[in-house]
């Protein structure tokens, strides 16, 4: 691999013209968030490294995985790779699960360069900043939280790595959102039944694929680290044991916060500006006590700006959701060609498939709405023909405009599960689903009238290449 941790990835981004370094002094608010917003607003926006934050000793990095160019580079693909090609590249690597290499010598693990066990003060180590005005405080929005199943503490498969929003509630106290359906909530429930603390390690400033997999829904007993190896095309990630537990932490991460979840205790957390582009309110949420910090020299605090989509989170919960849903569907419906679940965690999902018999598009949509992501997060499913690229919205709109009869091709199912943060749902967690069949009818269904589709002129593909070459000169 061209990079094995965040620092090397920053260099790789720089080499590929995708990193901007700000050396002028900036304020924690509103400058860091404003730069976060600006970076994703730019076409193929860059990652940004901010070296001088007023009052803080260490730098901040933002928008590391945002934009399709950065996303492609994260998989070591050329930065111009189309979304469709990135989708198929990721799909091809998905099976190459590779367990991480466990380092034994701390000298080989940069995350152990400094070890703090006394007078913990998070503000000393990271440039905490407010992301959205009405956030309840300073949020750590792009951490990988590592926990294990107390009933099966040796299992590395059940070891979970997830990104959850974390509010700083004291020098050594954190609030964390563990929703019921998150894997960390399974670990917590078992521990709370027994009134036991859950050891946790929170990795910050990670290899981009660690952050990426921490945001991906995979099966409970699958290891996110093994998937990092898969997405690196079979190259294992380096990990090392945490100081206070048997948790495995990424060896090259900028900082690791170690501690435990306080059992049977909740405190006010929130609001926080969330990925649908709206605030989610204050609630009584889980708390974590930080007891040890290990960090690299001059640690970079990597954080996530969340705003009205698209922001970096839309890439972090993007193609991984598409690929996971695609694979789930493809196993039973080989006619599925590609799945685009890029919009607000798959709230809108577009599927291209070759209808096998009349009405088949509905069957495909039903399956999407039963998928791990789709059953809650998907609200609208659009099904298009197999020759349509679901990532090409001009083509999808052409299908909606010309293949879809509203009176016959739209179905609404009320009272289904929904995404709790959807501001348009009447009851949080309950939603209607809409299926739009924008495919060409196949027997026994038929088109209302005969159609004769246009065919591009002979030789156009060759001319495409020729013109592109001429344009480059």
């Amino acid at each position, binding site marked *: 691999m061209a990079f094995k941790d965040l620092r090397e990835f920053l260099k790789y981004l720089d080499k590929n013209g995708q990193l901007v370094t700000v050396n002028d002094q900036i304020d924690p*608010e509103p400058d860091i968030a404003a730069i976060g917003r600006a970076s994703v607003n730019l076409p193929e926006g860059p990652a940004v490294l901010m070296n001088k934050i*007023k009052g803080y000793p260490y730098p901040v990095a933002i928008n590391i995985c945002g934009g399709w160019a950065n996303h492609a580079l994260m998989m070591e693909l050329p930065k111009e790779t189309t979304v469709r090609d990135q989708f198929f590249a990721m799909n091809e690597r998905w099976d190459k699960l590779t367990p991480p290499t466990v380092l034994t010598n701390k000298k080989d693990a940069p995350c152990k360069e400094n070890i703090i066990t006394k007078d913990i003060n998070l503000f000393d180590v990271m440039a905490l900043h407010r992301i959205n005005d009405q956030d*309840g405080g300073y949020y750590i929005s792009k951490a990988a939280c590592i926990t294990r199943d107390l009933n099966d503490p040796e299992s590395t498969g059940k070891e979970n790595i997830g990104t959850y929003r974390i*509010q700083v509630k004291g020098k050594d106290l954190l609030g964390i959102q*563990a929703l019921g359906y998150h894997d960390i909530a399974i670990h917590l429930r078992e521990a*709370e*039944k*027994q*009134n036991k603390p859950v050891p946790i390690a929170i990795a910050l400033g990670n290899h981009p694929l660690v952050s990426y997999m921490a945001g991906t829904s995979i099966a409970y007993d699958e290891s996110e680290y093994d998937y990092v190896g898969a997405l690196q095309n079979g190259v294992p990630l380096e990990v090392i044991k945490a100081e206070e537990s048997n948790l495995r932490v990424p060896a090259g991460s900028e900082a690791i916060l170690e501690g435990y979840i306080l059992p049977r205790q909740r405190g006010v957390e929130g609001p926080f500006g969330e990925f649908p582009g709206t605030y989610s309110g204050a609630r*009584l949420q889980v708390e974590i006590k930080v007891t040890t910090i290990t960090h690299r020299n001059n640690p970079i605090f990597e954080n996530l700006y969340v705003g009205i989509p698209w922001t970096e989170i839309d890439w972090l919960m993007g193609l991984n959701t598409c690929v996971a849903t695609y694979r789930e569907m493809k196993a039973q419906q080989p006619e599925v060609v590609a799945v685009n679940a890029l919009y607000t965690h798959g709230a809108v999902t577009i599927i291209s498939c070759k209808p096998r018999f009349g009405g088949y598009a509905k069957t495909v949509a039903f399956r999407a709405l039963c998928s791990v992501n789709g059953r809650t997060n998907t609200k609208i499913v659009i099904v298009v023909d197999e020759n349509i690229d679901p990532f090409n919205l001009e083509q999808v709109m052409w299908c909606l405009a010309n293949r879809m009869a509203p009176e016959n091709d739209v179905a609404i199912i009320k009272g289904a599960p929904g995404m709790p943060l959807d501001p348009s749902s009447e009851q949080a967690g309950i939603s209607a689903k809409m299926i739009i069949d924008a495919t060409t009818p196949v027997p026994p269904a038929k088109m209302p009238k005969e159609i004769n589709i246009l065919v591009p002129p002979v030789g156009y593909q060759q001319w495409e290449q020729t013109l592109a070459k001429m344009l480059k000169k």
Partner: protein
Amino acid sequence: MICPRCDSDTAHKLVDAPVNKAWEVFLCDTCFYSWRSTDPKELSDPKTYSKKFKIDVANIPKLAVIPPIPPLEKK
């Protein structure tokens, strides 16, 4: 010190800036709101804090508990 968000007298200075004491951060022990000395009045003054985002202390126990706390298992 009065918390701008929940009006409790439970706010206090949490930290000074690690470099040059360039600012201070305050924290409320009741609603865990935190803010910086450099924040505008809308985020730091109880009188001008956004009404929409104020928290009524009486409502705190009624906030949703996430995730619910399971019953203790008897051994």
